[in-house]
């Protein structure tokens, strides 16, 4: 078995036997010529299977878990999640992380609830709360690990074991750490979803989602849904994602190192009230993440002491860009209460700690001193 960085560096490089091209071709073909009646090349119609998307899905499957694991590429992270949630039925109940990505919360509340699938939200970093929320009709536990934006860390292994006892699936959104750092299937989860727009793509230039599973019966259902509902990833974006995957281990390593440096620096800054970064030993999820992951990621949240400073910080940064999204080579700063988590009711937001003092950094691959100086200037 090759190392993960070797698999990713050569993603799609050995596909084209005919020409030997070492970059996966972009197949903009909607349909495929049949060699004869009742015969197929393995490709019939691109919604069902497209060579470029297939090369991407094969790479992702190898990266996530190897033998028996399958991966599916979708038009966005939410499209991937939507396909996975269509596994459930009216009357089913899902226990979910309370400080979820706003778009996931919206999908649960505005799309699934009217359809009869109820979500209940608990602090999944607290195993006891998860245990109490499980009922006979609970069909899944949905975890974001770490959570967004406060980076709380759920114990994937313990929760997956608990869910299994209740006959419920465990679904993990692994967008923040990726399979380079955290491997939920190996910890007992059944399905992993990603917004591939973030670290997997990594260049802020593609919108894409991924679902992976090593359970053959779930894979068959997701494959059916991918084809039947058709929220597939197009060939050009599949190819860009393949291209992005090649540098994922390098990007993440640099981003993570810089994130730790910035988190440590912010923690000492007099105008910063609190820093949330699981790589800091003071973070409540530090020890757990150290055990279940091989790194702490590159997302850092912090609270400024004075909320009146927020608009000036957002307007004043010159290396950080004030924009939503995360995980790309360029560093971004966001204001979660207004941007990513606006769909969550204000009282819930406040209780969760997503308040008007909280800012979130996605640390890119720029030089860390330039990033620190940029923050230093706007905080003064």
């Amino acid at each position, binding site marked *: 078995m*090759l*190392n993960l*960085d*070797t698999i*990713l*560096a*050569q993603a799609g*490089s*050995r596909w084209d036997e005919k020409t*030997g091209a*070492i*970059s996966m071709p972009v197949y903009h073909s909607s349909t495929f010529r049949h060699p004869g009646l009742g015969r197929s090349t393995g490709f019939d119609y691109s919604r069902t299977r497209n060579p470029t998307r297939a090369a991407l899905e094969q790479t992702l499957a190898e990266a996530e878990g190897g033998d028996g694991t399958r991966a599916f590429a979708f038009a966005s992270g939410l499209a991937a999640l939507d396909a996975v949630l269509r596994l459930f039925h009216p009357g089913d109940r899902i226990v979910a992380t309370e400080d979820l990505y706003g778009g996931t919360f919206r999908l649960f509340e505005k799309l699934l609830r009217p359809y009869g699938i109820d979500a209940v939200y608990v602090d999944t970093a607290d195993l006891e709360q998860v245990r109490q929320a499980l009922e006979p009709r609970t069909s899944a536990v949905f975890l974001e690990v770490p959570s967004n934006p406060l980076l709380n860390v759920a114990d994937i292994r313990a929760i997956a074991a608990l869910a299994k006892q209740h006959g419920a699936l465990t679904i993990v959104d692994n967008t923040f750490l990726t399979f380079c750092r955290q491997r939920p299937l190996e910890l007992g989860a059944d399905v992993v979803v990603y917004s591939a727009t973030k670290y997997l793509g990594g*260049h*802020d*230039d593609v919108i894409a989602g991924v679902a992976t599973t090593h359970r053959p019966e779930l894979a068959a259902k997701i494959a059916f849904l991918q084809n039947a509902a058709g929220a597939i990833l197009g060939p050009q974006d599949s190819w860009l994602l393949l*291209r992005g995957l*090649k*540098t994922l*281990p*390098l*990007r993440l*390593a*640099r981003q993570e190192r810089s994130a730790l440096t910035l988190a440590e620096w912010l923690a000492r800054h007099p105008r910063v009230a609190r820093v949330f970064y699981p790589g800091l030993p003071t973070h409540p999820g530090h020890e757990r993440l150290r055990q279940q992951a091989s790194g702490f990621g590159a997302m850092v949240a912090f609270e400024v002491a004075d909320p009146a400073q927020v608009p000036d910080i957002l307007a004043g940064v010159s*290396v950080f*860009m004030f*924009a939503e999204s995360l995980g*790309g*080579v*360029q*560093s*971004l700063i966001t204001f979660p209460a207004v941007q990513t988590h606006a769909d969550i009711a204000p009282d819930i937001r406040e209780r969760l700690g997503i308040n008007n003092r909280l800012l979130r950094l996605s640390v*890119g*691959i*720029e*030089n860390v*001193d*330039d*990033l620190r100086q940029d923050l230093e200037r706007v905080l003064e």
Partner: protein
Amino acid sequence: MSKHDFSTRLIHPGRDRDPYTGASSIPIYQVSTFHQNDPEHLGRYDYARSDNPTREALEIAIAGLEGGSRGFAFASGMAATASVMMTFQTGDHLVVGEDIYGGTYRILTTVFQRWGLATTFVDSTDLDQVRAAITPKTKAIFIETPSNPTLKITDLAAVAQIAHDHGLLALTDNTFMSPALQRPLELGFDVVVHSATKFIGGHSDLIAGLAVVKDAELGRRVRHVQNAFGAILGPQDSWLTLRGLKTLDVRLRRQQESAALIADWLQARKEVKKVYYPSLSGHPGREVHLRQASGGGAVVSFELETGPQAVNLMKQVKLPLVGVSLGGVESILSYPATMSHAAMPEKERAARGITAGLVRLSVGLESAADLLQDLDQALAQA
């Protein structure tokens, strides 16, 4: 932005966002022409051969990264080199490093020779040879360091000094190092060309060339050639090159680290007759190279005893792709005698150490442990 570190400027290279929407990825302007509001005064953009906003963002980026006044993007590295050569005239003479890329050698000894641009090839690592080749008609010195494929080192600052003492331009092909490791304009050079297909693009998925000039007047001449001959880089490839640039620093650091490890390892193997790598102890150009560049780069050449052994090695390796080109995320093993230097006569090749036993490894982003393991089994069977 110029005050920032190189790695930061790769992410924010002058024009780092779309002025209209704020998009953090520069849009691909797949357009040939631009509507003009005032027929008497054309706008900034009129026809995409002349100026395309996507290509322009790349040209601004490379100019800033190399430290020049103006950058140009071309359809290939050879289109960049040829377009720069087009600024010279019939009767002009060039002093050229003998170890330059085979494609450059070919165009100089065929097309440009027919047009009356004379060339004298010298071993540019020997500054006396460079000086001795200068004639009253000489207009420029053109070198490559490290050279390809034997990675010989030429002293950039010294060559620039010789050029300027004689009123000549100093030109170099910086493909092997890229501005992440070596910035010749800062050492006195006037023009840098690149095959951006290699480290700058870095993903073996495009063909592109770049040129950067220091002087604004020379920039106008190259611009005239670029527009008049039109060997421009298209918008999709310009955008992919911009995308590649963002990870240039992280890629090269990893590739260089692995290359240094592999060079040391090869040096200790009995099957290997000779290893060429600029920062390897014992490399004759090591001291000069480390003074002008920040590392040995990611290309290692090595010689086996015989041609059949080299050919056999190429057949036995499982991880490196076997082919032409270099600088990609995938390791690529090449055989200069029949690939990059096939255009050079055998006698010339032999004089440059490009023997039948020589192979060139461009080290990619794979795990160094996997690459060593693969080379180990391949060498044992070669």
